[in-house]
């Protein structure tokens, strides 16, 4: 059995990035998941939310909270990622000047997601969008 949680994110809406991670966190706390694991999941979801706000036009977060793990799927319609390998590198960023000035776009997003999750899959089509799926075991 798993609980499904859904959220939508608008591109450019940084003030609402963090809503999905906060809600997911609340649910994980109610399940008595270890604080350390919760933190990893929450950080990963937050990074993914910011990615959508920074790069895409719109997107959604779907989280499946299960008994042994949580699977999060963040899909967006947006420019896609041209070079995934490069995008995974710490410090590499294609974020605009405006986004950087807001304190985001340091090029840590995807790397941070990878560091905090047990499985990570990135599917992307340039000009269409990206789907980032990751899994964390409790």
């Amino acid at each position, binding site marked *: 059995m798993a609980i499904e949680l859904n959220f939508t994110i608008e591109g450019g809406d940084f003030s609402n990035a963090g809503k999905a991670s906060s809600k997911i*966190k609340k649910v994980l*706390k*109610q*399940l*008595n998941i270890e*604080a*350390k694991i919760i933190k990893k999941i929450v*950080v990963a979801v*937050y990074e993914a939310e910011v990615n959508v706000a920074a790069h895409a036009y719109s997107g959604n977060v779907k989280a499946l*909270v299960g008994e042994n793990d949580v699977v999060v799927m963040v899909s967006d319609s947006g420019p896609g990622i041209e070079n995934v390998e490069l995008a995974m590198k710490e410090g590499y960023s294609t974020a605009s000047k405006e986004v950087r000035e807001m304190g985001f776009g340091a090029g840590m997003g995807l790397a941070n997601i990878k560091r905090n999750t047990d499985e990570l899959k990135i599917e992307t089509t340039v000009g269409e969008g990206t789907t980032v799926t990751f899994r964390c075991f409790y």
Partner: protein
Amino acid sequence: MNNNKKYHALKVDTQKCFGCTHCMKICPTEAIRIVNGVAVIDNQRCVDCGNCLRACPADAFYVEQDDLSKINNYKHRVVLFPSVFIGQFSEIYSEGQIYEALLELGFTHIFEVEQPAGWLMESIKDFSGENIHRPLISSFCPAIVRLIQCKYPSLTAHIVRRKAPHDLAAHFAIEQLKKEGAKEDEIGIFYVSPCSAKMAAVNQPVAEKESIVTGVINMKDLYNRIMKLIPTKEKMDTSGFRRHLSREGILWSLPRGESAWYRKKSMAIDGIHNVVKFLERLENDEVPEIDFLELKSCSEGCAGGILLTGNRFLTVERLQKRAARYPKAAQVEVENAAKELVKKKLVADEIKPEHVFVLDQNRSKAIEKLQKINDILCQLPGLDCGGCGAPNCHALAEDMVKGKAKMTDCVFLQNKYLQEQKVKPEKAYKNLEKIWGKQRFEADCNKKGGRNEGF
């Protein structure tokens, strides 16, 4: 978990309470429900912040306190109070006059708790060397400590393992008096509390075996007694009692009082709802690097304590003026050799998380309950009206899966069921009476509530 184990200073006077829901709506941990027409506090969730007392239009909340006559059991009667106590009094009274009134009341020794605050700050800085977690979170405000324990378990390791200023002052006072020849069992230490959280912390400390304080006095009660006794002119010199007081000490309990002294990268947040928002972000790693975090449950820090009289902003203003007249902590000489001993006693035990929001210890059962909550929420109107006796629809859904509430508690659903003839009108009315009390809805021109109270 034993629900009666946790001590709380806040109580509901069921004669005065009429279930108006003001407290239920403002409680930061959703600890209040209305049952049988009165507010009922969940002992596990309550953090003693006192927002319920502040919001109550009927004066139905009160704090338990010790009887002042208890001081007469001791030869040496020490009163400890935070500096904000002095800040409440109008400028026409000097601190000397206030001190004289305290002596008149029967105390033999007076200590403001923030002396010598330098020792506590030193001790906190020592701790920063021992603990790798950043930011360190101040243990000053007991409502915040309890909030973190139950709502932010991952942050408990960040809390500074040091006691509060009143413990510092109590140990300091005992050592001072012993030096003057007093026996320890002849000393009674009475702490004047600005809030319910500190009262609860003294009566049931979170991170120490038992409190050093003999009794707790309600600051509001003491203020009224002092106003009756205060002399028109200073007759004696009481400045000796204040010789260890410093500028930083006086400002300690106000916003930025601790963080400004800690320096480095530190931040201060006051008001429990602001603190909640910030801790959410901190837990998500959404804040930049910070070394020290000062969090106070009341807006304007202890100047906004629920047991203070008068306006919090005026109190801050007076204390800032007062502090400017005092020397800096580094210039205050403390001739007490017991410094190391007192510092040792300031070390507190580790603060452990309390998982009060966990739905079920069994994970698959917890997931089932979560699913049920989601299903129930689809049925509820989402208006958060409080008509069911719970603070919002989500809280009602949670209560339902815990077996503490039922669908018909929702007044909207109940109306729907009436229309669908799924429930009988008599049964529906009885349901309402169960939450709001008998005869609650009969016409009564003297009924409390609904009269723009609080404006």
